[in-house]
């Protein structure tokens, strides 16, 4: 298993490349979800007063 992580000596490059890429992708997935939840909360407040 160990040599699998070594990636023929380039392990640090390959794994950091994949790691950073999926970190950026994760941010792109989380940010809209948070924005959406915040928008729902704002809409709830706004439309709440007008019962």
């Amino acid at each position, binding site marked *: 298993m160990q040599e*699998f992580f070594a*990636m*023929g*000596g*380039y*392990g640090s*490059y*390959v794994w*950091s*490349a*994949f790691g*950073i*890429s999926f970190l*950026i*992708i994760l*941010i*792109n*997935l989380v940010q*809209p*979800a948070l*924005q*959406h939840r915040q*928008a*729902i909360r*704002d*809409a*709830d407040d*706004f*439309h709440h007063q*007008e019962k």
Partner: protein
Amino acid sequence: MNIIAKWYYRLGAPNWFYPLTGKMLPWIAVIFLALLIPGLYMGLFTAPADYQQGDSFRIMYVHVPAAWMSMFIYFAMAVAAVVALVWRVRMAEIMIISSAPIGASFALIALITGSLWGKPMWGAWWVWDARLTSELILLFIYLGIFALYNAIENKQTAGRAMSILTLVGVVNLPIIHYSVVWWNTLHQAATVSKFDTPSIHIDMLIPLLLMAAAFQFLYLWILLLKMRANLLEQDLHCGWVKKIIWDRRKAHNGGN
């Protein structure tokens, strides 16, 4: 009205677009994972190591799809810009502003993985290679589009201004790319272009295509998430949002 026009018209209406895409999201996520997992597995494990670059070439499986996506998203935005300007479809403007950060992210991924791929081979973190340089310029164009939209308060004019800039960009992109390629050949020893995918063996190609397809669905997934969030944020005061809030409340109250 034929079926396409009806679809096209209804897709433009937020109260129809929002719930429909809500239902589609889980399926898109599932398809993305269904493509990503085998692609990653084959790319990292089963594909044979490259005789020259050894295992560092596996970075290609995220670098090349990301670079393709950054170009694809820009041209998708350009098509939406034409729709937004010619037929004044607001949904197309929302699609552009939602796509810009995703395109920028893919360009950033391509740049980072490109320099990580280049480091073991040429010992330098950044190489003024034609492809990396035009990717960097594309990143700046994305940031410019994003900055313009946020600088204008009135979202109606912001959308139109952004669409114009996107179209100006799409005319300039080929010119920029070929002048950078020409500039690169002038300033660097004529080596084989560093980022041509090596004469690709079939087991190397399949994971690449899988990853490329996976990234397409990833883009669609993030795009719909982003569009729904932007739409809700902008139409906070509209009737269709009120209806959605009341439905949620009814479901919530009905629940407990």
